[in-house]
């Protein structure tokens, strides 16, 4: 029997491979079904932690500052992400308000906080308290975080509104843009690598 850590099983077709060390930028693909087995993790733990801290700050800015401001004959109206959630709730679309709050606020925020938590300890090669639960939560939450879609949605809304109103982009839109960039950067990183590079702390 091989050491379990040496093996990797393709998640899409169940083929077994011996893991190998990947060079910078290298991606190991499954020869049977073409799925990505694993990618070279080019960001170190410290760099990832720094990026998560940056993501947290940008996330706060994105949530408190107006995304866009509209002008119509002297009147102005601005909205934040929460403004959009509250508007949907008050206008009878509570399901949409709930979905937006979860996919644009709670899931991304918990992703940032949980990842930050495990990375903080992983910097010394340690596993954070609740490591197993935290790692499982990260895997489960990932598909439900929709910052990128919201970014594109904002652009579409701006173009639609532009026909009738004066549109002034607010700081929120830049924050969401930057957040989208960070999400893209992290998308090539599998947090599950932390299982390999950390050890259970012994008291």
């Amino acid at each position: 029997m091989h050491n379990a850590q040496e093996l990797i099983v393709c998640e899409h077709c169940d083929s077994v491979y011996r893991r190998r060390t990947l060079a910078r930028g290298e991606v190991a693909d499954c020869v049977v079904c073409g799925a990505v087995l694993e990618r070279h993790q080019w960001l170190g733990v410290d760099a990832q932690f720094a990026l998560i801290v940056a993501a947290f700050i940008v996330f706060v800015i994105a949530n408190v500052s107006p995304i866009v401001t509209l002008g119509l004959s002297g009147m102005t109206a601005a909205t934040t992400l929460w403004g959009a959630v509250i508007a949907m709730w008050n206008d009878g679309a509570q399901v949409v308000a709930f979905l937006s709050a979860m996919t644009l606020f709670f899931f991304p925020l918990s992703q940032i906080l949980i990842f930050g938590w495990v990375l903080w300890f992983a910097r010394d090669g340690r596993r954070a308290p609740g490591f197993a639960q935290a790692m499982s939560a990260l895997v489960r939450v990932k598909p439900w975080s929709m910052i990128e879609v919201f970014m594109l949605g904002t652009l579409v809304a701006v173009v639609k509104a532009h026909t009738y109103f004066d549109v002034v982009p607010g700081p929120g839109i830049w924050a969401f843009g930057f957040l989208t960039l960070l999400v893209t950067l992290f998308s090539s990183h599998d947090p599950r690598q932390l299982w390999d590079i950390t050890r259970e702390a012994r008291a």
Partner: protein
Amino acid sequence: MNAPPRASELGMMSCHVCRLVTAYVDDPHAHCPRCGNALHVRKRGSIGRAWALLAAAAIFYIPANLFPIMRTQSLSSKDDNTILSGIVELWRAGSPGLAVIVFTASIVVPMLKFIIMGYLLVSVQRSSGFVAKQRTRLYRFVELVGYWSMLDVFVVAILSALVHFKILSRVEPLPGVVYFGVVVVLTMLSAMSFDPRLIWDNRKSQ
């Protein structure tokens, strides 16, 4: 190059959550020794669950397209838009590029999800050995693009929050957008329930 062995042939299994490779255990209540999540060779009840969620999504898809998703009100006019009429309006307003993006996210992607998921489920139930690699690719495509269909839902949310100029101009969400949001979530859940490894199990011909 020879095809690598499959975990099921080697008597191994891999944790669906943390990817730890372990020896096969028969116990349905087994837990991963590393992350503590339930261990199973394939996602449980995969086909039944994926079908049920897909059927539910298809039912909600009808009102999502028939009912208007957004009302634009001004002093002189009241305009209800469905998903399709909103796209036509965007095209006419001089943004054909964005109209194509919204059309892709709101119409093409959900349609493709229904067709692909239906095809994958039927082919797995028939133990088809046909183009397994391509079918796995189709599954990855569905997983990758699925959540972009939320685009229109977010557009309505932002416009409803922004356009609040008392009687002068006002945008409100209409029931269609709720149904559409539900469709996106149900199709995502359906795709997540499906286990692509089933494509490679019990193939009739190789």
